[in-house]
């Protein structure tokens, strides 16, 4: 502490130690919180087509189209250790060739301060619902479920599965008309 530089160094080091301590307290105050809430998902229009996926090969694969309704109030999930939520909607189903297929159809980032009370009507999916064969036509049990990542200021990056999912069937006939 005998020179200006040394005093500056000592104060800065102490301030940063305090900051680390405060950050840890922030982490510890939120680590045991429960981030699971309810969500209501419903499909509106479900169509399956059989078209070639030129990005992979010229073979024809099943391509599903669907629109969905979703209601969820995610406002309670935000606290001082949540910077943003990354929501994603997953379709999960079984085909003869694969026991488990998971396709992410839609996602959304909700920043802190944005409206987190979601009420979507007749939303289109963001990504193509390709199957790697012909597993979608007439498939009787496709389950849509919502999950989210919590991006914190400090600490863990939890992956949460929402309570509530929706199962639907694909039609037994391909749709050939343009939509």
């Amino acid at each position, binding site marked *: *502490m*005998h*020179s*200006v530089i040394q*005093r*500056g160094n*000592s*104060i*800065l080091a*102490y*301030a940063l130690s*305090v*900051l680390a*301590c*405060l*950050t840890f*307290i*922030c982490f510890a*105050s939120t680590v045991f919180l429960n981030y699971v809430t309810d969500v209501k998902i419903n499909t509106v229009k479900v169509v399956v087509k059989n078209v070639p996926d030129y990005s992979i090969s010229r073979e024809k694969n099943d391509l599903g189209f669907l629109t969905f309704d979703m209601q969820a109030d995610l406002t309670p999930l*935000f*606290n*001082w*250790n949540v910077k943003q939520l990354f929501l994603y909607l997953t379709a999960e189903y079984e085909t003869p060739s694969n026991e488990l297929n998971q396709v992410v159809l839609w996602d959304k980032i909700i920043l802190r301060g944005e409206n987190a009370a979601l009420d979507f009507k007749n939303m289109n999916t963001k990504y193509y619902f390709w199957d790697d064969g012909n597993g979608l036509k007439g498939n009787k049990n496709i389950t849509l479920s919502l999950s989210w990542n919590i991006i914190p*200021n400090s600490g863990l990056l939890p992956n949460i599965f929402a309570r509530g999912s929706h199962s639907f069937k694909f039609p037994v006939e391909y749709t050939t008309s343009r939509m």
Partner: protein
Amino acid sequence: MDFLSRIPTHMDFEGQARAEKLSRIIITLFGAVGLIWGYIVQQFSQTVYILGAGFVLAALLTIPPWPMYRRKPLNWQPAKNGGENQVKEGSKKGKKK
């Protein structure tokens, strides 16, 4: 340059102790208040800003050698005429080498 060398930069020993104690108290206090306030408004950034304000305040109050840290200078004994001894020691060392 003469002007620069006349700027005082040192504290006395008690002043150093007081400066360190004061800076620790200020930063800890601002950190604690910032934590409570940040928790109330649920904004961790507020906590960080308040701690930063505490750091700036502590830096202003304790880094420059203000007169309050220089009240008890050491009472050095007046310099004695020891110049000859030093010269002799210096010359002995020189011979050994």
